[in-house]
């Protein structure tokens, strides 16, 4: 009984992690950008959902369709304006740039919206499905289902549209793709935009679940990287499976070992994956890593 509930909880939080990591796996996977501002985009989406609900009464499940594109535009702008130039120079430059952006975004949010903790209430924020003694939080369930749906959509995009195939091509064989007439920078901008839209979806869905405050992104950033590496860079299925695995590992070790140690467990797991199988579950063998190959 307890075990069943733990597994359910693990899967649900795993869904949250998957949702947050979808965008990152594209960005990190395709462009090898260690995107430290990822968590802060999540935070922005959460705030936008909060304000849309508070000021205009929109349900997050509706404002989703406005906020995701907004985040996409933001991502495209940031990539085109800042990261594109950084990425050309070196790895270190792109890391520095995303860290700088993260500091800027967090503190602008702090100055604009203060450090108060905001909470978004919807009709079913607190509602729970009960099923034979097991309890499933509805907002979490919705987030989980949407994560699956979005993964499927993006998967279709990547495999059945020209742009999508071009992105996949550029991810695995950069020069060959360029030779085939693919403009890498336009592609990367699109990719960053999609990744940002995905994290935007994540933020909106998480707003009814978590408190919203300027540094909330930090809560999810490291986990997202763990999930992405576990699942395999660039693999959407990997992000979903990786998220579920980490969610389960976290919840089970929290119960059977200690809540204070749960992060330790998945960090050690993370190190083990990096050392023994950096390509993760679904990723291709990582030959060289770098924007410049």
């Amino acid at each position, binding site marked *: 009984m*307890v075990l069943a*509930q*733990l597994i359910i*909880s693990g899967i*649900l*939080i795993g869904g*949250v*992690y998957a949702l947050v990591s979808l965008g990152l796996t594209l960005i990190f996977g395709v462009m090898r950008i260690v995107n430290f501002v990822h968590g802060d985009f999540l935070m922005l989406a959460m705030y936008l959902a909060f304000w849309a609900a508070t000021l205009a009464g929109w349900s997050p499940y509706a404002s989703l369709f406005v906020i995701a594109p907004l985040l996409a535009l933001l991502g495209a702008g940031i990539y085109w304006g800042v990261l594109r130039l950084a990425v050309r120079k070196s790895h270190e430059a792109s890391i520095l740039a995303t860290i700088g952006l993260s500091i800027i975004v967090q*503190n602008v949010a*702090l100055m604009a919206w*203060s*450090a*108060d*903790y905001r*909470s978004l209430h919807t009709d079913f*924020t*607190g509602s*729970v499905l009960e099923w034979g003694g097991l*309890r499933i*939080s509805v907002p979490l369930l919705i987030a989980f289902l949407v994560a699956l749906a979005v993964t499927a959509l993006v998967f279709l995009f990547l495999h059945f549209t020209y742009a999508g195939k071009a992105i996949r091509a550029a991810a695995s064989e950069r020069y060959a793709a360029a030779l085939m007439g693919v403009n890498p920078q336009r592609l990367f901008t699109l990719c960053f935009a999609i990744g940002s839209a995905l994290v935007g979806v994540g933020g909106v869905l998480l707003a009814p*679940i*978590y*408190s919203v*405050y*300027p*540094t*909330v992104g*930090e*809560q*999810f950033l*490291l*986990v997202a990287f763990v999930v992405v590496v576990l699942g395999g860079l660039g693999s959407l299925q990997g992000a979903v499976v990786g998220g579920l695995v980490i*969610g389960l590992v*976290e*919840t*089970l070790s*929290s*119960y059977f070992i*200690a*809540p*204070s140690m*749960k*992060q330790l467990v998945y960090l050690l797991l993370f190190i083990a994956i990096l050392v023994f199988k950096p390509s993760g579950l679904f990723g291709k063998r990582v030959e060289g890593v770098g924007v410049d190959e």
Partner: protein
Amino acid sequence: MNKKRWISGIGLALAAALAVSGCGSGSGSGGGAQSVKVGVAFPVSGPYAKIGQACTNGTEIAADIVNDAHVGPKIELVKVDVPNATSGVNEVNRLISQQRVKVIVGTYVSPISMAVSDVAERNKAIQWEVAATEPRLTGRGYQYVLRPNPNAYMYGPASVDFVSLVVAPKLGLKADQVKLALVYEDGDYGQAVAKSIKEAAQKAGIPVVADISYNAKTTNDMSSIILQLKQSGADVLDLVQYDADAQLFWKQAKQMGLNVKAVIGHGAGHNSDNFGEVFGKDADGVLNVSSAMGINKNALLPETQKIDEEFQKRYKEKFGKEPDLIAKMAFSSAYVLFKEVIPKAGGDDPAKIREAALALDLPQGYCPTGWGIKFDPSGQNTRATVAVMQWQQGKLVTVFPEKFQVTQPIMIPLPKWSER
């Protein structure tokens, strides 16, 4: 060779620039008898910003009230941001040497206060604490650190007394039959208060059936904790949590149907106005051990009742919202400094301030939080009382001890979630 010249040049230029700007800035003396500069050092950016801002606000109102009453020299506040220990040290050094500040109110975050107190002590400047609970702050024999607020060791006994004297009887149990579970964030605050609770529980013979700590920053899901609690069969749940985790926990407690007979928070997240706003009716019944909020007016001295009202009024006017408990604590602490100590010391001479502070003998009920003031030689206020409050109808009201009580505690035992 060019590089060396560069470096030498820069080094010389830097030294020159610093020397020159040093002469330029840095206002004159700390103010004569007419005005006194007081440093205000709280974290207003970074992870502690929300509470730091509330503390700054509370301190400001205290200065406003005292200045308008023309009690002593005018209090001029010099505000700085100290988001971490390094900035704390930098800024306090700056206040002392550039701004000639000799009294500093701050910092509420224990590690930052520890670092700042060292600078203050070495330079014989006063650090006037408002909320940090680290016992060692006043446990090192320092002469220049004064703490009007309670320290962590005071929380445990107050909380456990409440359980023995009020909760147990209402549950029809003897104290040593009450099963206590403890859930706390693993930062300095959580660990210190939890330690205090555990020691007090042991003394009272109350069994602790669960001792669960977690990292507030990285905990996105509390279901496993809640399941553990369910398994433990606890009657009373003691919590030490910050805002975000307190809210997540309570949300999930409802979702997962965690039913315990009493829930007792200890400051921080459960003090916060956000808690009441977010949960509305669902917050009702939650108890909170901390300095008193919503205290029985009769427990306060008549003069203090008026000051408390003025504080509420001015705070709302200036900042557009009601003050929360932490703002009230900061106000109470700063008010004592501005109203009672600085005028008696005749200025900001640290030795005189310490003397004046140690000489204070103000009864309980002097501060809006219910504290009296009587410092022991270590700098800790021995009359820093900790009370038990409860969320009732979206507000925190004091329910224990009797002389502070506004109303009786309700909902002990707490109704099950399904029956709310």
